[in-house]
């Protein structure tokens, strides 16, 4: 459904584009209907840039982003973009920044209505909104007709998911949507994503938190400095990480029942086998992947 092939993003920084900053490097990945794909990486890995490119909020330097066969990065014109957003929607990291603080929170629904459903009657629209709010397991009485700061972060994020569900979307880009939520509410939002997946939605889940990526996704992509380090079925990537960077990341994640010392000892006791990583020349911008087992890829090593 969504296919990124050889996508690059280069920013020109400094006055008159003096220096180049390679934010995304030769990324290839796909998202199928009913699949959650996690994009995992530290700051500067390019994970959010990929999300923004898929949403058409920032341009692609080279490469293609195909959505149902059409190249998204080449969409020109307001109405074509508007049609694209009928099928693909996003939710962002900061719930409090996603709502314009001077308006009531449910204005996000009205914006969808005025753009996409101008002909729908008030009653039908109200029913549609109530359905969407029900789907994200919110009580309409608690969330409608309220200002953003009267609601919790978790409620706001679920409202935004409900907003996306008003449209006939096929793909949802969820960019760090729970990183600002408290522990007690973030799991509900994650579970919601899992429910939506059941309904056939494809989800691109961008996160810096390995345990969250692991919890919800079918496939995981670990990014480093804009390029894919490792990609594969979530279970394979987490239980048998092949790339030294993935292994390093996993050894640094604070875990709930295992201390770092225990992880280190375990690793020392059963040192993982080494895999041969693909290599590229100095000036080569590409980042090839090697398939180490079925559907499980490793990428180049960068320092």
């Amino acid at each position, binding site marked *: 459904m969504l296919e990124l092939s050889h996508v690059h993003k280069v920013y020109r920084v400094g006055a008159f584009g003096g220096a180049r900053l390679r934010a995304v490097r030769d990324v290839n990945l796909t998202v199928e209907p009913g699949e959650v794909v996690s994009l995992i990486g530290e700051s500067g890995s390019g994970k959010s840039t990929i999300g923004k490119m898929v949403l058409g*909020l920032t341009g692609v330097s080279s490469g293609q982003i195909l959505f149902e066969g059409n190249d998204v990065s080449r969409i020109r014109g307001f109405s074509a973009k*508007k049609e694209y957003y009928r099928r693909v929607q*996003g939710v*962002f990291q900061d719930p409090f920044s996603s709502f314009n603080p001077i308006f009531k929170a449910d204005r996000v629904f009205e*914006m969808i209505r005025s753009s996409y459903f101008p002909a729908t009657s008030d009653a039908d629209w109200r029913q549609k909104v109530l359905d969407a709010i029900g789907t994200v397991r919110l009580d309409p009485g608690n969330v409608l007709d*309220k200002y953003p700061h009267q609601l919790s972060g978790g409620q706001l994020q679920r409202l935004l998911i409900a907003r996306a569900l008003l449209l006939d979307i096929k793909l949802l880009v969820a960019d760090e949507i729970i990183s600002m939520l408290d522990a007690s509410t973030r799991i509900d939002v994650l579970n919601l994503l899992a429910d939506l997946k059941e309904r056939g939605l494809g989800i691109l889940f961008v996160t810096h938190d390995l345990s969250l990526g692991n919890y919800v996704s079918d496939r995981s992509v670990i990014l480093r400095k804009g390029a894919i380090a490792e990609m594969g079925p979530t279970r394979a990537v987490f239980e048998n990480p092949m790339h030294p960077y993935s292994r390093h990341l996993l050894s640094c994640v604070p875990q709930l029942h295992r201390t770092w010392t225990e992880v280190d000892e375990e690793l020392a006791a059963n040192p993982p086998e080494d895999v041969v990583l693909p290599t590229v020349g100095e000036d080569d911008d590409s980042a090839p992947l090697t398939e180490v087992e079925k559907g499980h890829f490793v990428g180049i090593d960068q320092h």
Partner: protein
Amino acid sequence: MTNVPATPGAADSGAAPEPAGERKVSEGLHFARRNPKLLIGTGIVLALLFTGLIGPLFIDQGPNVYVGPKSQPPSSEYWMGTTSFGQDIWAQFVYGLRSTFLVGALGGGIAFVVGTAVGFVAGFKGGLVDELLNMFTNVVLVLPTLVVLIVAVAYLDVRGVVVQALFIGLTSWPWAARAVRSQALSLATRDYVDLARLSGRRTWRIITTEIAPNMSSYLVMSFILLFGGAILIAAGLDFIGLGPANGVSLGLMLESAVAWSALQLGMWWWFIPPGAGITLLVGSMYILNVGLDEVFNPKLREL
């Protein structure tokens, strides 16, 4: 990642007793009513405006008519005395206030429109558009306004308040453009702007409905500063002799006072009122502005 509001518990929850919109407004009013700078500034500006609007209605003859004895100090008949030619200075003063307000509102208004338009477009569009507009702004910013105006206005045969205001407006916008640009730049990165894009909104609607309302206090303050600036520039032009032909303004009063040696003749009543009027008006506007800033900017409230 971190989610630690400055005031724990104050930001949460649906338990807030009153709607937030009202709360915000009432909070603003609360501080506005207690801010002496705002109250005094507004009071003086309104009093002067009132004088300029109502005053002329009580004056039978025009401001430049030779009505009385020459060179009289203030008396009960001529409140501000008379000029060397027997013109009533009070009459000139109230008419002058009128044109001062007019030139301020018009010149400041034009500068405001140009400045905010350039600032919004530059800040919001970014890229090459921003580079070019920014360069243009810098060029106009570096040019000394009054000197440019002297050269431009000198060639005009017919000079009126409106033309003067137009010229002032077209040359004094750059700093406002800069200020608006930097504000717009920071607001444009808010997630709700991206969300509006994903809701199929056009750029100009995003600027007018999402961004501008969030910086309304800032815009009001910019306008006030431009207003005051335009008055000062106009007074300077008038003083050099490039004021409205056959008109009356506070600047022209200063000009004729100097031209006819009021200083050497000790006719202080000729040059003190017009300058005091300008200073009082512009000064109160600036102080009103500080008051506004203190009301809207919580950081300044504490000091």
